[in-house]
């Protein structure tokens, strides 16, 4: 059976990968029949209505799902399609109360025009009454008109008629409401680098977060990804090289054992999904080499707003331990170990190597990666034990960020590394020297953030 999914008309390159991830998670066969970046209407094939409900219940970038009763370029085509495609369904809806509504994308229809359109479906033998509020069945006529962006991009002449018309029977809505619930503006604890609610939830979906699973974020910060994974039922732990990021700075903490990040779980009633936060550096991680994680979600610091740092000294020469008041300096309260700038390419390789060691078979890692705008199409970093599942891109002015999702392959299977990113970090010791992205993009961008911080 074919179904129509109404998608949010943005974050386009995330939409199909998210649907596919959710289909994998809930275990339904999903076949994409029609998808276009320029259209919010996507047609899919699913085994049954239960599958449609399961799929939509976990989706963030999809709004709702409809049983597809017919579609076409014009109303003659639509009516002909409805008569062949949906006639067998009609007896089921003979006696229900029902309503028709209309959704136009990039177009307009007056109330009287809509009414005429609804009336044109008079041949469907409904015997029940029309009920506008809470009908048993809601039908939606959807019209997709040419979007200005598409006309410009594809150099198509503008047309007053719809490109495509659909009739669907409403089945269920998605979990998009979670975007409002998890809105950063209403969240207890955030920082300048917190990922927005929508993309955090999408990231959690890409990694198949679900009850019973264990998730980890090695750059946890204020916990944006973890609260999203916890929303979907996963148990979550995080670490950060800077404990102030998750614990809160002294003035942000409310009591002795207060962990600022934990207040977010309290706000969302998911405290039982919080496992731990600890202070550590991924390049010297205390985590054991064993496959214990179902998912890893992360947005590694890439040195624009926060310099990327790991343990060690700039010149590579270790400092000799000293004893102060009978105690080794590094055991004294408030000791801060030396850190050095680190290259982003090296860090990405370290993250993937860690994921290969720590994920269970078929476990997933979703990693955000900033990219200069001219490098968006270039290969992504890879690891032989990880298969690239999807790459989605969010573009800003002169830079973009890609969300790369990988799957841990079973032991003995290897991915084709010939397509992997082969870049190395430049040599050097300062943050800008070892980070090409910082050099390429930061000039105006970084300064902008500096200005914002000063305000």
């Amino acid at each position, binding site marked *: 059976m074919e179904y129509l999914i109404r998608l949010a008309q943005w974050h386009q390159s995330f939409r199909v990968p998210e649907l596919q991830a959710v289909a994998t998670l809930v275990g339904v066969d999903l076949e994409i029949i029609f998808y276009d970046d320029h259209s919010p209407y996507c047609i899919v094939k699913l085994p049954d209505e239960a599958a449609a409900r399961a799929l939509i219940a976990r989706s963030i970038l999809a709004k709702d799902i409809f049983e597809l009763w017919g579609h076409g370029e014009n109303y003659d085509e639509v009516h002909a399609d409805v008569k062949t495609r949906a006639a067998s369904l009609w007896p089921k809806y003979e006696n229900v109360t029902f309503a028709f509504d209309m959704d136009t994308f990039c177009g307009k229809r007056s109330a009287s025009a809509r009414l005429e359109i609804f009336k044109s479906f008079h041949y469907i033998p409904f015997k029940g009454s029309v009920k506008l509020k809470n009908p048993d069945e809601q039908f939606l006529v959807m019209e997709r008109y040419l979007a200005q962006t598409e006309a410009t991009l594809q150099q198509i002449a503008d047309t007053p008629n719809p490109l495509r018309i659909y009739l669907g029977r409403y089945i269920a809505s998605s979990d998009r409401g979670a975007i409002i619930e998890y809105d950063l503006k209403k969240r207890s604890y955030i920082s300048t680098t917190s990922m927005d609610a929508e993309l955090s939830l999408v990231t959690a979906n890409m990694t198949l977060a679900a009850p019973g699973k264990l998730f980890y974020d090695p750059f946890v910060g204020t916990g944006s990804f973890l609260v999203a994974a916890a929303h979907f039922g996963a148990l979550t732990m995080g670490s950060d090289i800077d404990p102030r990021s998750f614990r809160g700075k002294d003035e942000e903490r409310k009591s002795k054992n207060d962990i600022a990040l934990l207040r977010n779980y309290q706000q969302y009633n998911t405290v039982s999904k919080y496992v731990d936060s600890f202070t*550590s550096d991924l390049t010297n991680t205390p*985590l054991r080499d064993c496959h214990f994680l179902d998912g890893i979600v992360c947005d590694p610091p890439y040195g624009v707003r926060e310099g990327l740092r790991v343990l060690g000294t700039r010149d590579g020469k270790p400092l000799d331990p000293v004893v102060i008041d009978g105690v080794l300096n590094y055991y004294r309260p408030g000791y801060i170990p030396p850190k050095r700038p680190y290259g982003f390419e090296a860090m990405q390789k370290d993250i993937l190597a860690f994921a290969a060691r720590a994920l269970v078979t078929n476990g997933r890692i979703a990693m955000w990666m900033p990219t200069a705008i001219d490098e968006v199409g270039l290969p992504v970093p890879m690891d032989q034990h990880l298969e690239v599942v999807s790459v989605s891109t969010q573009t800003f002015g002169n830079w973009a960020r890609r969300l790369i999702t990988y799957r841990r392959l079973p032991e003995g299977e290897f991915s084709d590394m010939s397509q992997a990113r082969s870049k190395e970090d430049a040599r050097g010791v300062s943050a800008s020297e070892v980070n090409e992205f910082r050099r390429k993009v930061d000039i105006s961008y970084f300064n902008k953030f500096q200005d914002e911080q000063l305000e």
Partner: protein
Amino acid sequence: MKVITANFVTCAVKECKTSPASFPLHFHDAELEMQELDFQPEFIRNVIPRIDWEALRVTANELGFPTLPESKPEAGALNDEQTLKDLHRILLETQVMEGKLVCGNCSHEYTIKEGIANFLLPSHLV
């Protein structure tokens, strides 16, 4: 720091990772706090196969819990609610708020303060 986390960490010093003496890290002067959390049998069943049972027995012992069974619950035992609840209690509801984790190989001490363990290393151990 929760007991489950302690089962997944070892000494952060690279040379220690290959030494059996570095795992589990040993709790010293641990101050415990119990926190009631929703019982999630699905999670316990999923995570038990990934737990190092011998290390968990050592940790439980150090923290003053009754001795755990000699062998890891498997198959049918993972459907026994009391077994799962006992494991839920020790793995997720038991937190070390203050204390130290000490490596049995290099003797390096990691402090736990206000529930947060610090695994950062001074430069001579990196």
